[in-house]
């Protein structure tokens, strides 16, 4: 009888005690709004459940999402692949090729029907009969639809799968099409970015494994926990923005002092992503910290919104929340909305108080 390494075993192997494990289960139950008795059930499930099968397909893309994924520091990607998921198909790293590889898709589709996650990197082109992306002699879109049919849920990795990204920029010569426009009958979780942050990718995946549910999404289909706020909202250079201290030109005194990059085109005020908080590559830095403005790579159609060096002209220093909400395509919810609302209320209250003072 083959033994499968379960989540519990993974956690134990990583040095987590049984006591902590049980505590984790009861916290999970509480977080899920379940009665305390469910803690035992969660513990039981995690002790016995095999690794969830993941099929990772590649359409038109540049593989930056996979490259980002393997940069994950917590969890380490070796632990993800060996112990958390069963990465049954990923043509970037799999040993098999040709029909031995294709056979795996067939097997997963039947053996794990309704239970596997379909992770998609890149997107299907629809022009040229779909043949500008050929897999196994057939259009990629056929493979994608076949595998979507029996999957549990779809993860759209990166801006290609989520929005179309660079090959879908004007005039989109191959008619590269985002995944949710061809898969309409399954839940699609968008994890945009070019690429997405490694720990956001593994975070989304492990969230699903840990809590056994899909993350809460915004209206655009992005996990709120990572895409609920703009880069600007938590940018460490925000005080310079508020103080009116800007980089005016590359390598000027402002650049050397780490001033705000808004005037040289930073798209932080209109970009929903976690770069200014989680940061990149184990928290080492993020674009703004290294002196270049955000290019807005997690936003829909960011390639077609003018030069990366043109500043967002209709974003003003005061009243920026309302303005950015309008220009941003996502609905501001969660903490973002709370802060926006708080700011709005403070301004309103301040105005009221002032009015009151005047009257007094």
């Amino acid at each position, binding site marked *: 009888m083959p033994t499968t390494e379960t989540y519990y075993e993974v956690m134990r192997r990583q040095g987590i005690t049984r006591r902590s494990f049980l505590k984790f289960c009861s916290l999970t139950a509480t977080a899920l709004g379940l009665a305390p008795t469910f803690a035992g059930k969660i513990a039981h499930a995690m002790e016995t459940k*095999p*690794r969830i*099968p993941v099929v990772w397909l590649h359409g*038109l*893309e*540049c*593989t*930056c999402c*996979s490259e980002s994924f*393997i*940069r*994950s*520091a917590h969890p380490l990607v070796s632990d993800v692949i*060996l112990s958390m998921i*069963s*990465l049954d198909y990923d043509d*970037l*790293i*799999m*040993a*098999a*090729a040709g029909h*031995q590889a294709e056979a795996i898709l067939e097997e997963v589709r039947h053996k794990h029907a309704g239970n596997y996650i379909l992770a998609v990197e890149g997107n299907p082109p*629809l*022009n040229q*009969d779909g043949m*500008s*992306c050929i897999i*196994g*002699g*057939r*259009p*990629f879109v056929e493979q994608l639809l076949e595998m979507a049919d029996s999957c549990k849920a779809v993860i759209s990795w990166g801006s290609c799968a989520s929005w179309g990204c660079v*090959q879908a920029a004007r*005039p*989109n*010569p*191959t*008619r590269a099409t985002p995944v949710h*426009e061809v898969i309409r009958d399954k839940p699609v979780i968008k994890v945009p970015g070019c*690429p997405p942050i490694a720990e956001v990718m593994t975070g989304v995946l492990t969230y699903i494994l840990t809590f056994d549910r899909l993350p809460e999404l915004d209206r655009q289909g992005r996990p709120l926990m990572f895409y609920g706020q703009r880069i600007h909202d938590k940018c460490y250079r925000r005080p310079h923005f508020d103080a009116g201290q800007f980089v005016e*030109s*590359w*390598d000027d005194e402002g*650049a*050397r*002092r*780490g*001033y705000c990059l808004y005037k040289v085109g930073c798209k932080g005020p209109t970009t929903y992503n976690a770069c200014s908080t989680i940061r*990149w*590559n184990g928290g*080492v830095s*993020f674009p703004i910290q*290294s*002196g*270049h403005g955000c*290019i807005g*790579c997690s936003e829909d159609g960011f390639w077609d919104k003018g*030069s990366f*060096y043109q500043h967002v002209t209709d974003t003003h220093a005061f009243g920026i929340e309302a303005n950015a909400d309008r220009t941003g395509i996502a609905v501001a919810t969660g903490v973002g909305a709370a802060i926006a609302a708080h700011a709005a209320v403070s301004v309103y209250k301040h105005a009221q108080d002032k009015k009151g003072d005047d009257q007094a």
Partner: protein
Amino acid sequence: MSVVTANGFELDTAGRRLVVDPVTRIEGHLRCEVNLDENNVIRNAVSTGTMWRGLEVILRGRDPRDAWAFTERICGVCTGTHALTSVRAVEDALGIAIPENANSIRNIMQLTLQAHDHLVHFYHLHALDWVDVVSALGADPKATSALAQSISDWPKSSPGYFRDVQNRLKRFVESGQLGPFMNGYWGSPAYKLPPEANLMAVTHYLEALDFQKEIVKIHTVYGGKNPHPNWLVGGMPCAINVDGTGAVGAINMERLNLVSSIIDQTIEFIDKVYIPDLIAIASFYKDWTYGGGLSSQAVMSYGDIPDHANDLSSENLLLPRGAIINGNLNEIHEIDLRNPEEIQEFVDHSWFSYKDETRGLHPWDGVTDPNFVLGPNAVGTRTRIEALDEQAKYSWIKAPRWRGHAMEVGPLARYVIGYAQGNPEFKEPVDKLLTDLGLPLEAIFSTLGRTAARGLEASWAAHKMRYFQDKLVANIKAGDTATANVDNWDPKTWPKEARGVGTTEAPRGALGHWIVIKDGKIDNYQAVVPTTWNGSPRDPAGNIGAFEASLLNTPLAKADEPLEILRTLHSFDPCLACATHIMGPDGEELTRVKVR
């Protein structure tokens, strides 16, 4: 049925056709078809790029200063090299000189890519062609430890360490959920390593997976993120401030120390793990001498890593430059990237059309019209291809030629040219490796030679990172902290029309971008990339490309298992998103597939 190609390779289509699609463990999508004779020896090879994105037409009409970001997305594996090539092309067109510090930082970033990409290729894309994961389960951890300690003083080498990894691997395999190792060619007679060498290599597969993420932090420091760090026309966006107020918002002492420490770790990992593993594995495959292809007769490198800023002459480039043709290593030809007679692309076997397909076009005059048609002898249908007809159009890759010659590019090409030039930085490590393995010079013209050159280059690149980091610090110490030249940042300062070319030596080989700027906007943009050279289909003269040539005459241990085909194709580190993004002005085609 047998023909000899213009570049001297004998092709015979008589035997059984074997199709490998998808070719896995590469970037992007590639198909390969071969004909096998009665002894399972490859007698004809057909390589097909099976994806195409059309970035050049997307670039038309855009701001040239943005082009680096678009072209960087050609490839996320060799991330950054297209961006660097692009800013060089724009700077060439507009006559922009960059500061010395920007040159050092760019070199450090490019070398970081070389070191990282080669390491990941060796362990995660290529190793399973040589290493049998299942065999590692039967290894004696003590013997593995003894082997590891005999070839390197890398500290993680105790019997207990290898036993832990082996146990983890055993549990993984016994779970029945084999993940990426499912349906591999385990137990094939083509695998030659003893169990302990397999266990050592698999262990380092996992170690390298954990370590590689450290190397790229250099990109994160200077470029803000990886993959796809940020670049700038005129220099680099990361300002330097080691003294005053706000230094924490710039490249400061702590940042320089971080980079420095990562460089040390990278050098150590490559020299103590990668290189010893490479030699150990190669020593068991000395008899497997296949895969030379074009490498002994036609290789090319544009050269790269300028020692000083703004000088791209051969003397100033640390990676060698030049072309070798007809197998004559005594003559190295200079390459003129602007000469319309030198670099040309042909499409008579590609899914594009020209007015006159007997002729090639220089990239500045590049035209690309998609034309997806199958030849009369193709088997299957337009959307269900069983076998291609290589006499007709059969690939989304164009066929670039240098003065009519199909060329191999990449680490082996660079090392062959460096060796032929007598440059000790390239000649000495090759001679040492060959002496250690007891092999003659001819042995480098092979699949294994390609793989070995990549390893040697990874080490070379890591040590050069140290050189440029020290140079950067010395320059800062001398009082120069400039990182960008903004004299020509404003498009008002630009001429009405300008054309430029930028090159790099990407991990996979010679990369060139050609740009035409008109009225401040991109008028034409063409990229000719390494895998376009290596993965090229046939041309009007009948020359075959490097992938196809390298597969010929290789015997397969098992006729239905493409292990040897993967081995040789992987030795080029194919990158198909790079190779097949090219696209012209009339790209819109009306046929569309039906979507539910």
